[in-house]
């Protein structure tokens, strides 16, 4: 009886110790030299209507620092997203989403030419800049981005929300499943929201 007691107790202690050690080993990880630290916000945004097309103009402040430059120099690609939503307000219920668009651009360092490339992932257009500041200035300005046409509006109150996001690296599909633990590889700003003047 006593032997069984001791066996159970030892087993429990051993298992507990092993689990704690495994957790300590696992949870402990070196802090990433985070290239995404810094201010990330939508400074201003507005829409202009040109011939029935709503054009979005936005100014975004992306984080800038030496670590960002080093990250790019190491060959890491950064993805800059600008999310735009147009919602119709509804009483006593959730708002109805009319438009949900993302303007996605990638910034990378071209080692062979020693230039910074900005590439639109959808149109595949790309521009090169001799300095990082020039490239970031280019990314920070979004002009005349068509997000909505008048026929999509059928009265009521509408709100436009804009949010900026930055994400590091291209994840291979096979790694994507196991890397979803790490959520500090992407940052998003608060929503910048205003009412649509109709």
């Amino acid at each position, binding site marked *: 009886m006593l032997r069984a007691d001791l066996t*159970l107790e030892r087993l429990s202690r051993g298992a507990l110790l092993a689990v704690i050690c495994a957790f300590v080993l696992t949870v402990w990880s070196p802090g990433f030299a985070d290239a995404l630290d810094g201010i990330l916000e939508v400074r201003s945004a507005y829409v202009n209507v040109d011939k029935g097309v709503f054009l979005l103009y936005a100014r975004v402040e992306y984080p800038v620092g030496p670590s960002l430059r080093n990250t790019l120099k190491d060959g890491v690609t950064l993805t800059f997203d600008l999310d735009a939503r147009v919602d119709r307000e509804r009483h006593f219920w959730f708002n109805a989403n009319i438009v949900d668009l993302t303007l996605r651009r990638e910034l990378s360092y071209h080692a*062979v*030419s020693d230039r910074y490339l900005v590439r639109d992932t959808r149109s595949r257009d*790309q521009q090169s800049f001799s300095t990082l500041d020039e490239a970031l200035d280019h990314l920070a300005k979004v002009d005349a981005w068509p997000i909505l046409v008048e026929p999509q509006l059928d009265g009521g109150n509408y709100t436009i929300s804009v949010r900026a996001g930055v994400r590091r*690296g291209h994840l291979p599909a096979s790694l994507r499943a196991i890397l979803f633990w790490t959520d500090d590889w992407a940052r998003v700003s608060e929503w910048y929201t205003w009412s649509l003047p109709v």
Partner: protein
Amino acid sequence: MVTPGVSNAPPRRLRWVAVGQGVLWAAIGLGAFLLLAKSVQNSPEFGRLQLWILLFDICGVIALSVLLARKVWRLVRDYRAHVPGSRLTARTVAIFGALVIAPLLIVYLSSLEFINQGIDSWFKVEVKQGLSDAVGLSRAALDLRMREYAERTVALAEALTRSNAADVQARLDAERRTSQALEVVLFGAHTRIIAASFENPLESLPSAPPPDLMQQVEQHLPYVSLEPQAGGRYLIRTAAALGAFGSRDERFVTATYPVPAQLAALSEAVQNSYSQYGDLAALREPLKYSFRLTLTLVLLLAMLAAIYGAIYSAQRLVRPVQDLIEGTRAVGKGDFGTRLPLPSRDEMGFLVHSFNDMTKKLRRARAEATQSQQVVEREREQLAIILARLSTGVLAIDRNLTIRTANAAAGAILGSDLSAATGRPLPELAAGNERLGQFVAALAVRFAAGREEWREQLDLDGASGRRALMCACTPLPGEDADAGFVVVFDDITALLSAQRDAAWGEVARRLAHEIKNPLTPIQLSAERLRRRLLAGMSERDAEILERGTRTIVQQVETMQQMVNAFSEYARAPEMHITRFSLNQLVSEVADLYRSQATRTRIRLDLDEHIEAIEADRGRVRQILNNLVTNALEALDGIASPLLEITTRLESSDDGAYAAVTVCDNGPGFQRELLGRVFDPYVTSKPKGTGLGLAIVKKIIEEHGGRIDADNRPEGGARVRLVLPVKDSTRSATGGARERREQLRRERA
């Protein structure tokens, strides 16, 4: 768990719950797997499903943890409560757990090391250095071409500086064709295009000079840059200011050259590799972290599942043992109806089957034993009833005369409640009981003499007279040396008395017959002698004859009276049963003697409940006369004579009886005569035939009654007679006459 005769399979509801849980968890696991597979193929899909996948995983871990915690808690609770089988379960779980957890931990730690080393090997310094060298090589190859183009552009600027306006266009065209440039443009002040030459003038316009180009040109420094284009193409852009530094000439010339396709493709390949390596290198630590986390989660799930499985398997393994323990306890408590469910067809199943077989046999054996016991009990009860109803006394004793059992008749005969004195020694009970004392002494003497089997008549004297017991002793059979003895005895006093009565009746009858007949001739002959001879005789002889014949006649008359009394005793006249009031008869007799014996006080105590009895009124009156006469004769010479006559109504199982007690305060019966006062010729009086009480007894017995005589403790005689109230009772019990007749027949 264990129920008599019923299988303890889990209830149907619980079974369905277990099946439902299994199906639910299988569906959740399959769903999570499908979501994972879908998300890996599609990045945006992954973003949406990530939350659900996480939720599934967390739910799985939590559910498993809860189930395991519940199992462990129950196991610990049972262990502390010393529930049968819990220690075996704990030991089995410990062994199973150790067997599973140890390899898991080894695999886990090895995998961690393998992941760390494997991922680190992907990003060796040599690989990075090789890429950097490739990039440097590409740059060197392109730099050579860029420098060449830059020099050509500077030379062109110097030539244009010297050229007049009319030759500018021609020089630009010539230069573009010579150098195979895509475009050559001459800008003036404020980046105004002065002249331009294009390879395809219809397809493109001169591109605006970039800011860094303008800065270089303004400082009269040559400008050259490599611009990557979409599709893996490269352009080399050069620029040079016209005129000398400090001159007022603001013109500058730009040229755009294509990089040869082969060189561009190689450079692009190097760039792509560099970029991919950078992305992967950045994932190095997060990748390790994720692998470790995933591995730990898998380990946790595996460990939890293994421990849960170990507990579940151990409990399933131990359950038949628990059932056996509970069943054994139930059998120990006498519950032979326990049946255990058969767990399987293995050795444990065989054991359970043997247990069930054993309980079945035990149950059958107990039923048979119970039945036998009931039979024995029933026979014992019957024997007890028989013994209780026996008029024969039965007494079982051991060698030390300690009572083992005794029936009621034994107690009644010996005058002590022996049936309630089981386990007590007879000598102890004999104190104060003279008759029992004599009985015990007779037994002790025979046992002391080593006589174990004998049959003798014992005469026991007591306050109520002498009793004759026909006693037989036999040792009881048994292996034990002191199995005891059984003593069987009958009170044959009444039998002896009846025998004596019958003998005396016969004597009386013969006497009456043989003596009465010659008496009359004797008397007549004497009287004739006196008449014939008296006249012729002398006075003296006549006187002698007269005296002699008178004496003869008187003695004959006396003998005649005696013979009449014998005849009275012997004859059995027909009884004339009538219904009359006993109390009234008693009163009449008392009144008769009150008038004759004025000195004696006669006190009556009559029971008013006695209404009437069925008997021969004349013979009952004769009884009362005899008893009162006897009492009055006994009271002769007593200072204050008192005669009490009491009547009482008594009831028994046979019916109602009327008891009449006649008491006096005289000298009482002589002690030696107490047992024989109703025998003929037994009398203490100087005169009398000695047949009075004998005739009383005879009449009483002919009525089916009984009579007792003893002395009162305060002094004086007491005679108590009991008569049946109804004649039917007398007929049922039988009278003395029948008994007498029976004895007579036996003797004949």
